[in-house]
């Protein structure tokens, strides 16, 4: 059953009074219910045909017409406007009615209304209507001229406007200026003048052009032109986006204005027909447009679109009408796809397969494009994974680094002129002390690049690493001949001579040590290492002539201030030549190591840090000598920052008792400061086989919370790690990296602290090195970089250390059998290919007591 149609007038009540009907109609108009208002006013007219009622009904008609036009019901809106005009013929036409008529192509009707009723319009409406008809007239609409008197400004000034437009189109700027000058200010063509001026100024003064365009009102007859100009003058990168809602005329105009040629516009039209192109549609488009785009280019770009879903996407090319992928294309896209994964071996295998394909048939001639392609492909896995730049050779024949080095070396057979690859390989082997291989590669490289500074520096380093000091000196001279201000080479050579002198002293060959010392002096004219040379010279004197040596050393010690710093530097030199320091210290008047005063302490700690930064640990007998005096200096009035730096330096030096003393002293001054609670706890309990009392763990837990609340993530994280290790499933007081918890390898038995060894390794590798050898994905790298910005580099290193200890899944424990996937960490840093199958039982036990 049909639902009865609702009538427009809900309250059709002929018995209502005129006042009630008027009030109801006014309420409906106010609420925007024009349809109902029209019906109510009609009822009112039946009982009271007053002029004001007719005007009110005309107002309701106008409201309804606008409502319909806004819904796109143009014809229905026009009928309502016509009803309004018939109801009150004297009413001036509304602009919306006229605009609608123009939109519907009834230009002549508008012209007639303009001619008859323009005088009834207000000035603004008259100007707007004038611009609407002027634009039509200029655009070639004959009805305008036909319906207007010959003296109408639209016709009179139309000739000037047309001349201006033609002058702009043909690029005749003087004529354009003249024609624009002839258009009066109150002309119906005033907006055209603004647009043309804007177009003239667009390239030189875009902001001024935008201002001129903004002066053209939305109701103006020249508004469509203004909008198209704004599109065409918009930034090229947003043009396509802004064109989305534009019509054909505006788009053509804007694209032409923006410098788009016919071909470009034609392709864009096709793309628009396709809609938003996904990769498969793009492949089809590339094939269809291959003649325009170029066959090879279109094909190559299509291959790049296949990467994300390869090999499934391989069918897209044939589906789009192209020929099937060749074997070479398949291998290339497979290699690209492998690079998007995380398994380094997939990348190696894919590029090796591609290189093998390229090498089918006769060997490519050196220098040919094919040979270069082969070389580049062979180098690609290493360049992409960036392993050899800082990897330490694993010496594992199946290791990733070994394979990459093999591929890079093979690439040099096809492209021996790539000096970077030569140096990369040489440095890699040098890092692993494989001097034989490094020398072999160096010889090959220097034969091609005899005057290359980088290769000569590598040669110097190889010579120094092999204690070939004569050869090193020769290379240093070659370097300095090419680069006279190369202080790095000089300094390395001086240090090497000093190291050699110490070696000779340990062997008792004092004359040879003296010779090395002289050579060191020769290469150190600027005296950069004078202090160390002086101390070593004094110790050499002491070995040959006690009195002379004592005098020389006293002089040196005096120069160093005579305090704990002098004692420290001298003690380090003694340790380096294997001579007990106490006797030497005594000989130079330092009966015991002085307790540093407030003035000495910062200098001493800076020296200590400098020594540790060089990568050398502090010898045990040096630690023994300095622990006591440092403990005694713990109450020096340091600032909070200095105290924290002191604790950290003492931690790095392994001076646990001094560290504890400094942390306790700091806690007296700044009670419960988290970082000092942590230092005190670590110094007290690290490396001791006793469990801390619950009270101490409670203090540490409070410090952890306080550090987190204060934003000190590094301290919070370190404290949390310690607390976890003492938890019910923790691994107890022996906070040892699991990487070093191999039953077959008792590092502690060898006198090595596994935790410290892991820390030293990680610090030596640096963040970049560690990320490289762990095969961290770009996303993981970005995450860690973000973390670095938040908690600092030290903080990130601590987190990485914790991850290595705990073997988080993303990076994995550095067990030698970790297969495919990211390259595991560990000395040597690369996975063995032999262990590429995953082992399900690789998981670490969580309750160590049970195993």
């Amino acid at each position, binding site marked *: 059953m049909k639902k009865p149609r609702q009538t427009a007038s809900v309250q059709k009540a002929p018995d209502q009074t005129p006042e009630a009907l008027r009030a109801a109609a006014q309420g409906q108009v106010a609420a925007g219910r024009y349809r109902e208002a029209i019906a109510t006013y009609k009822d009112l007219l039946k009982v009271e045909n007053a002029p004001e009622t007719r005007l009110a009904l005309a107002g309701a008609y106008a409201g309804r017409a606008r409502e319909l036009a806004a819904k796109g019901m143009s014809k229905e809106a026009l009928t309502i406007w016509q009803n309004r005009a018939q109801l009150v013929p004297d009413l001036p036409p509304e602009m919306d009615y006229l605009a609608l008529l123009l939109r519907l192509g009834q230009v002549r009707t508008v012209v007639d209304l303009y001619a008859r009723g323009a005088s009834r319009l207000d000035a603004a409406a008259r100007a707007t209507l004038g611009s609407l008809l002027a634009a039509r007239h200029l655009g070639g609409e004959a009805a305008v001229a036909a319906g207007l008197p010959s003296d109408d400004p639209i016709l009179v000034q139309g000739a000037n406007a047309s001349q201006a437009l033609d002058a702009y189109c043909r690029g005749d700027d003087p004529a354009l200026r003249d024609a624009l000058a002839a258009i009066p200010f109150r002309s119906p063509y005033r907006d055209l003048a603004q647009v043309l001026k804007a177009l003239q100024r667009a390239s030189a003064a875009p902001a001024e052009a935008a201002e001129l365009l903004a002066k053209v009102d939305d109701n103006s007859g020249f508004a469509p032109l203004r909008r198209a100009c704004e599109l065409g003058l918009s930034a090229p990168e947003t043009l396509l986006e802004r064109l989305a809602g534009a019509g054909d005329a505006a788009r053509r105009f804007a694209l032409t204005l923006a410098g*788009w040629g016919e071909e470009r516009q034609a392709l864009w039209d096709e793309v628009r027909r396709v809609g938003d192109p996904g990769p498969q549609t793009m492949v089809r488009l590339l094939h269809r447009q291959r003649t325009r785009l170029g066959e090879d280019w279109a094909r190559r770009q299509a291959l790049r679109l296949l990467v994300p879903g390869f090999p499934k996407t391989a069918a897209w090319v044939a589906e789009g009408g192209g020929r099937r992928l060749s074997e070479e294309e398949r291998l290339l896209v497979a290699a690209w796809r492998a690079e998007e994964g995380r398994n380094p071996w997939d990348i190696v295998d894919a590029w090796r397969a591609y290189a093998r394909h390229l090498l089918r048939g006769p060997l490519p001639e050196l220098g040919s494009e094919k040979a270069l392609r082969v070389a580049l492909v062979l180098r690609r896995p290493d360049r992409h994974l960036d392993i050899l730049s800082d990897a330490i050779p694993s010496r594992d024949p199946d290791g990733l680094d070994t394979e990459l080095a093999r591929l890079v070396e093979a690439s040099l057979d096809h492209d021996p002129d790539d000096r970077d690859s030569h140096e990369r390989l040489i440095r890699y082997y040098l890092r692993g002390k494989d001097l034989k291989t490094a020398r072999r590669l160096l010889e090959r490289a220097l034969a091609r690049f005899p005057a290359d500074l980088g290769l000569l520096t590598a040669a110097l380093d190889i010579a120094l690493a092999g204690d070939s000091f004569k050869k090193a000196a020769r290379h240093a001279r070659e370097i300095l001949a090419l680069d006279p201000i190369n202080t790095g080479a000089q300094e390395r050579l001086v240090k090497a001579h000093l190291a050699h002198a110490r070696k000779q002293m340990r062997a008792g060959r004092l004359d040879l040590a003296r010779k090395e010392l002289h050579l060191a002096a020769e290469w150190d004219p600027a005296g950069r290492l004078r202090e160390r040379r002086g101390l070593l010279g004094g110790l050499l004197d002491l070995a040959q002539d006690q009195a002379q040596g004592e005098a020389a050393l006293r002089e040196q010690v005096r120069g160093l201030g005579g305090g704990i710093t002098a004692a420290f530097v001298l003690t380090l030199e003694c340790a380096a030549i294997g001579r007990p320091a106490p006797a030497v210290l005594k000989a130079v008047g330092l009966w015991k190591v002085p307790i540093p005063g407030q003035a000495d302490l910062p200098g001493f700690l800076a020296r200590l840090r400098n020594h540790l930064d060089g990568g050398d640990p502090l010898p045990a007998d040096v630690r023994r000598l300095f622990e006591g005096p440092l403990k005694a200096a713990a109450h020096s009035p340091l600032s909070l920052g200095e105290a924290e730096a002191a604790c950290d330096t003492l931690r790095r030096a392994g001076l646990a008792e001094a560290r504890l003393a400094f942390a306790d002293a700091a806690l007296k001054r700044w009670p419960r400061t988290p970082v000092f609670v942590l230092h005190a706890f670590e110094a007290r309990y690290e490396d001791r086989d006793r469990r801390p009392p619950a009270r101490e763990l409670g203090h540490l837990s409070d410090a952890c919370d306080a550090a987190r609340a204060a934003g000190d993530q590094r301290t919070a994280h370190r404290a949390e790690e310690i607390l976890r290790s003492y938890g019910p499933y923790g691994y107890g007081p022996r906070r040892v990296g699991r990487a070093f918890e191999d039953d077959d390898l008792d590092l502690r038995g060898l006198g090595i602290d596994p935790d410290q060894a892991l820390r030293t390794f990680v610090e030596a590798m640096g963040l970049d090195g560690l990320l490289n050898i762990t095969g961290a994905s770009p996303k993981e790298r970005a995450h860690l970089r973000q973390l670095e910005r938040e908690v600092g580099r030290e903080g990130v290193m601590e987190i990485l250390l914790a991850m290595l200890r705990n073997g988080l899944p993303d990076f994995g424990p550095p067990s030698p059998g970790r297969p495919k996937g990211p390259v595991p960490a560990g000395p040597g840093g690369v996975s063995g290919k032999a262990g590429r199958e995953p082992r399900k039982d690789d998981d670490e036990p969580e309750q160590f007591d049970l195993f």
Partner: protein
Amino acid sequence: MSDPYLVLGLPPDADDAAVHAAYLAAVAACPPDRDARRFEAIRAAYEALRTRRARLAQDLFDRTPPTLADLLDKVEPLGTPCRPDRRLFNALLRGGE
């Protein structure tokens, strides 16, 4: 735009000299102080094509999928802003959009 040949307006067989000349012309047309982003793109394109090895590496290892802008530029590079003709003006003046 991701294709360095398109950035510098070079044919695929351009040699070192052509690449260098195109780079200098592009920098002269768009110095860094005028449009830093565009200059960066020009610089990156130059680095990608500077040597024969670099050009081969670009061909072998660049897996950046083409953008619509690449296709458009390949068909016909963007020209200098152009004055539309009277026909295009008239279409808009008659109310067409």
